[in-house]
């Protein structure tokens, strides 16, 4: 593994990226609400039954202010998958395959749901520290530590300034709260069969079939209404529905803040390349197919953290423009890291990562020989 540098002292860095939404962004919350279109008001969990059902966006409090956010877990998941994606690309270029266990481990952190923290030996910890991906994202059944801290993506407004890991780079939005930072969009699902807009359906499906369908629909509606009237829960019976979805408006500035404890240039390089891949994807949240969740990074910084964990110093800007694909600027720390990260990606093999993808419930000794061979990361013929 020639990507290990011997002279690189462990250092702590922060990455600050100020993005701006270029489309409505929706990261779904577990809570549901109601939207009253006559007043334009969105009710959140207060038991009001007025209006249509609304899917809310994820929010968090800062002081007394409830603000829309990109949850840290969403960003962290995308970052881990972005790093794993770089490794997969490299494997495929070299005709290498992975086991499902390794795929699970790299994507979501563990090959199984059972933890085996007691097997965390000094040898394992040393190996984990040397492996750039594992030392960055941790996890596995050994509950290894992650050296990445991912902060909540806060809208850049006055209320969130004191919550940010490092200062905002671009201008703050003057918006103050949910209603100014979010909007509600309607989702109408049509039933083309009963709407009668397509004149071909009577010939395409047949009058008798259509009549039977309409009768069945009407019967189901009656049943559902009777259930509701008697206090039971009645299901939706019509394909034609109206729902509302709360989104962060396009044009909202949001601060993404990441911290990393770096062991080696390769590890820092993999981290920076994964952040770059995340920005190049340029989308967070649901309804991607509907063009939602897209953003651009307007400014970025790499910061060095001092001996006191709470003091940081800006080293350099980190990424060029979106139009150019977010290239890295020239800087000794960034150059060394990115070169080492690319060297790692060119040389890593599944066998380097497989020891972290073991399953205590199914020891490797009990696996079939074919699976063991696959786990060693040998070359396979191109399909």
């Amino acid at each position: 593994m020639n990507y290990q540098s011997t002279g690189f002292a462990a250092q702590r860095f922060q990455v600050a990226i100020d993005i701006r939404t270029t489309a409505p962004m929706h990261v779904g919350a577990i809570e549901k609400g109601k939207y009253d279109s006559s007043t334009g008001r969105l009710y959140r969990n207060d038991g009001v039954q007025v209006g249509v059902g609304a899917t809310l966006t994820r929010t968090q409090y800062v002081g007394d202010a409830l603000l829309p956010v990109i949850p840290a877990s969403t960003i962290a998941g995308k970052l881990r998958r972005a790093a794993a994606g770089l490794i997969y690309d490299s494997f495929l270029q070299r005709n290498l395959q992975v086991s499902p266990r390794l795929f699970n481990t790299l994507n979501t952190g563990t090959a199984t749901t059972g933890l085996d923290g007691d097997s965390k030996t000094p040898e394992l910890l040393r190996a984990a520290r040397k492996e750039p991906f594992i030392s960055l994202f941790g996890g596995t059944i050994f509950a290894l530590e992650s050296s990445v801290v991912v902060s909540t993506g806060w809208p850049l407004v006055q209320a969130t300034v004191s919550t940010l890991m490092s200062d905002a780079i671009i201008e703050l939005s003057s918006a103050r709260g949910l209603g100014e930072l979010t909007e509600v969009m309607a989702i109408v699902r049509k039933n083309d069969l009963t709407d009668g807009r397509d004149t071909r359906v009577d010939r395409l499906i047949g009058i008798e079939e259509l009549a039977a369908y309409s009768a069945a629909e009407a019967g189901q509606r009656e049943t559902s209404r009777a259930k509701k009237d008697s206090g039971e829960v009645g299901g939706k019976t019509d394909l034609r529905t109206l729902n509302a979805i709360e989104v962060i408006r396009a044009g909202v500035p949001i601060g993404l803040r990441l911290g990393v404890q770096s062991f080696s240039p390769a590890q820092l390089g993999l981290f920076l390349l994964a952040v770059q891949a995340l920005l190049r994807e340029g989308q967070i949240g649901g309804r991607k197919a509907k063009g939602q969740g897209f953003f651009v990074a307007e400014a970025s910084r790499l910061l060095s953290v001092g001996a006191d964990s709470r003091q940081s110093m800006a080293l350099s800007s980190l990424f060029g423009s979106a139009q150019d694909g977010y290239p890295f600027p020239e800087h000794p720390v960034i150059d060394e890291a990115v070169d080492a990260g690319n060297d790692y990606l060119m040389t890593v093999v599944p066998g380097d990562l497989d020891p972290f993808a073991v399953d205590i419930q199914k020891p490797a000794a009990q696996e079939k020989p074919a699976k063991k061979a696959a786990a060693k990361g040998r070359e396979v013929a191109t399909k």
Partner: protein
Amino acid sequence: MTPLRVTFTFRTRMVVPTVDKPVDGPLCKAAYQQAYFGGHEDPVSQQYCVGLAKHFVGEQWCFMASNIVFDWAGPPSPLHYIKRQKIEDYFDAADIGLMRKMPGFNSSSGAQKAASVLTQTRQASSATAWLVADDAERVRELIGRLTHLGKLAHHDFGAIKDVAVEQDEEALQRWRSRPLPFGSEVASASSHALATTALRPPYWQRTNFVPGLLPLGL
């Protein structure tokens, strides 16, 4: 021995702790991390090198460091997050040849289990702990390394904004508000109750549990 009071203020909300946490927990973690990131051969062996005085009862001992007392500001609010598993990822990986074949998929259990987790966060205006140091400089060094308190630190919850370490004679009494070894002469029936507990970090680890005395409150 130096009696100290440590006061933390926070930049972000905390995940509300489900049990009381002695302050030696974060210090031991900081000592472990310092060794781990510094390239020590066996970082776990360094976890108790924290500069705190120890309280012995026979062979059992604990650090002379109190539970952390939180001063909450405002009510708690729920935090929901999910561990996502998408069958499309597996299809894609098999399609492009990354895996030999599409594995079975079950997001309700086993390797591909997805999770939906609901927890509580709350803003703390401050948190205070009292401790007795054998090596006050070592304690200050480790406190300087602390970045977060509580769960989900890797998602920046419980981020420490500032720390004040001051000499405080009260610490000679108040460190006792913590799990103590069974039979400790510093506990009384009005201050502690018999329970099974860990006396040293990691406090969550069941194999560390022994009969001990838990504080009833400050």
